[in-house]
């Protein structure tokens, strides 16, 4: 007997709850989760049970929560409902949930639509969209799933940042969330409450004449308790730099801060600084900057601090051999890997176990990507046996995803998943790696699922989203270590 959702929803009460519930399994009679038993795709996707994937559509302006096991969109939300003209949902991170089908929270950042990619900074676009950070909530506890805004964190704190968001783990689990932005060169750390409190904020500025990097704490106004960086305030450039634009002329102080990633076991976090090819290591017990890693091949392991003046840490950066983009820790914390790109396309591998980050050394590089393929994102698996990387490419090339063996630091598999590939994130059981490609905001785009053990592509789904990020909702704080925490 076939039964569709409409018939179920209409007949559930009339027919009797017990009989109908039996088709779905105990405890799921009233949740809007589809059981695909009997459908042609059920066997193929059933192995992904327990995985809810969040997919923010950049130029589509919405986010969707997808049940990968059906597959079906459970709920979606268009940020235009929050009053934003041309919302550009950008990066995303999900809090852990023991039962994500019932509910979970997540964080979403947003940036204005100005972009050389699409509209190349036309004045007509400069007042559209906004910088935003939202705490969002998926509620699957009722008969209609929903996504809603819990907090407009930019308004709450007075600082609006639009690039990566990452949630603290290990020593910082269940405490903090970090936001970063390369148009403002700032990082904001808040707590994870529904009315977030400011914990710490940083700003990075370069002096190209002195060849020094200054990283400072930024403090909210004493009377308001908020910053004055809402919306476009504080931006050094009108758009986030595309790959390669690190070489473009820019604000002399601009360094393109991209993300903050968390060490899974030690009390440290890394501020990723694209234009300088550096990562500033922060002690999360004191929020002091304790080291500046220089990730390029041929550069020293770190650059020296020349002085600290109050809450400003100054480092000498005499030369920058290459920009970098993303960097983060593998799940175990044993290594910190950094995607150098544009002028050097390689991945620096630091051993990151010492409690003094100034002792972290580059042990090797993953190389051989040539001059067309740029290391961009990374994705972890629970046992740290492999790390997945996105190799981005300009048109007319597609780019690809590669799998690196963490014993040999060699590429052992690669996949051309589609044009403009972006993030990787593994399923909650660690058996599959999901990855998105976004078609340069116009063409082919979708979600691909790769079997970690066999390297087979198990599934491909369409997603007209132009996603630059996605995340599988983790089940636990330990599971967060493979998610948008240690890596971006």
């Amino acid at each position: 007997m076939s039964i569709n959702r409409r018939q179920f929803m209409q007949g559930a009460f009339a027919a009797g709850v017990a009989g109908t519930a039996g088709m779905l399994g105990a405890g799921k009679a009233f949740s809007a989760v589809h059981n695909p038993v009997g459908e042609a795709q059920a066997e193929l996707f059933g192995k992904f049970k327990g995985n809810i994937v969040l997919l923010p559509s950049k130029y589509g302006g919405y986010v969707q929560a997808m049940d990968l096991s059906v597959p079906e969109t459970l709920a979606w939300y268009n940020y235009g409902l929050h009053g934003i003209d041309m919302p550009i949902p950008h990066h995303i991170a999900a809090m852990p949930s023991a039962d994500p089908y019932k509910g979970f929270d997540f964080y979403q950042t947003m940036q204005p639509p100005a972009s050389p990619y699409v509209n190349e900074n036309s004045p007509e676009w400069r007042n559209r969209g906004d910088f935003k950070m939202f705490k969002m909530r998926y509620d699957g506890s009722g008969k209609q799933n929903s996504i809603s805004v819990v907090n407009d964190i930019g308004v709450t704190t007075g600082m609006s940042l639009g690039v990566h968001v990452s949630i603290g783990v290990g020593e910082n689990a269940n405490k903090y969330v970090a936001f970063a932005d390369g148009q403002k060169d700032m990082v904001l750390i808040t707590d994870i409450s529904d009315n977030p409190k400011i914990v710490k904020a940083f700003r990075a500025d370069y002096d190209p004449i002195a060849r020094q990097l200054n990283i400072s704490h930024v403090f909210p106004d004493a009377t308001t308790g908020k910053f004055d960086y809402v919306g476009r305030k504080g931006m050094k450039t009108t758009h986030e730099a595309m790959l390669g634009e690190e070489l473009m002329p820019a604000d002399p102080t601009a360094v393109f801060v991209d993300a903050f990633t968390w060490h899974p076991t030690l009390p440290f976090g890394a501020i990723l600084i694209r234009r300088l090819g550096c990562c500033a290591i922060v002690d999360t017990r004191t929020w002091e900057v304790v080291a500046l890693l220089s990730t390029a091949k041929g550069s020293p392991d770190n650059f020296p601090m020349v002085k600290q003046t109050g809450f400003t840490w100054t480092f000498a950066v005499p030369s920058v051999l290459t920009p970098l983009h993303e960097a983060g820790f593998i799940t175990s914390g044993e290594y910190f890997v950094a995607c150098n790109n544009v002028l050097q396309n390689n991945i620096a591998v630091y051993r990151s176990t010492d409690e003094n980050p100034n002792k972290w050394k580059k042990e090797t590089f993953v190389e051989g990507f040539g001059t067309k393929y740029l290391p961009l994102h990374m994705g972890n698996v629970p046992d740290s046996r492999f790390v997945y990387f996105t190799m981005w490419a300009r048109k007319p090339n597609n780019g690809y995803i590669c799998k690196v063996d963490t014993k040999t630091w060699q590429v052992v598999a690669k996949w051309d998943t589609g044009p403009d590939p972006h993030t990787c994130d593994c399923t909650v059981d660690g058996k599959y790696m999901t990855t998105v490609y976004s078609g340069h905001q116009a063409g082919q785009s979708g979600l691909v699922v790769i079997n970690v053990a066999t390297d087979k592509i198990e599934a491909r789904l369409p997603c007209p989203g132009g996603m630059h990020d996605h995340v599988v909702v983790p089940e636990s704080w330990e599971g967060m270590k493979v998610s948008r925490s240690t890596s971006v």
Partner: protein
Amino acid sequence: MKIRASQNRASGRIKSICTFMSLASLLALPVGTALADSKDGTFPTAEQVGGQVYIDPVAVGKKLPLDFEAYGMNGEKADLASVVQGKRSMVVFFISAVPVSVNELVKIENFTSKYGNGINVVFVNADTVGSALMGGPKAVIPNSVKTMHTIKKEQSLKTSSIFVAPNDALSADGVSTRLGIRGLPTSFVVDAKGVIEKVFVGPQNWKKGDI
């Protein structure tokens, strides 16, 4: 933040050595080396674009290269060399996407009108604007010129000596690589023969005697 380039670039610092080596290397690329901006999506190596991310502007005492493609406020091609020929000039490179460089234009105009002794001021937007959604590649120059008119109006600039210079930052032949521009604005003061007298990087607290 005030950032001022020194007049004498021939110091013993690492950046000068890198600049010299990188400029020399541009003249002798290895055989088969692909340059960026190629249709196959190649990115440059460090050697092809000056040796590292932060390269130095063309040095004081050198002639400022102005033989790159440029368009005037009427959308027509312009010869920047002839615009500065025979006149002591201040050539200011900015980008419409960088607010600090746009805001500096009116400061420079006001400063030079008061203390510039009649110096010829030329503003050059080293970038293009508005293609993909605004009419495709053929719309690039018209849209960039339109943006220049917007900037002139919004910044209340008196000059019409504002040009668009399409720039490919990933190319050894790109404007920003050739001129060594990384911070904005970069302002070159050149003599009547086009030889660089002074270089200023970033916003300045302009005062009498600076140029």
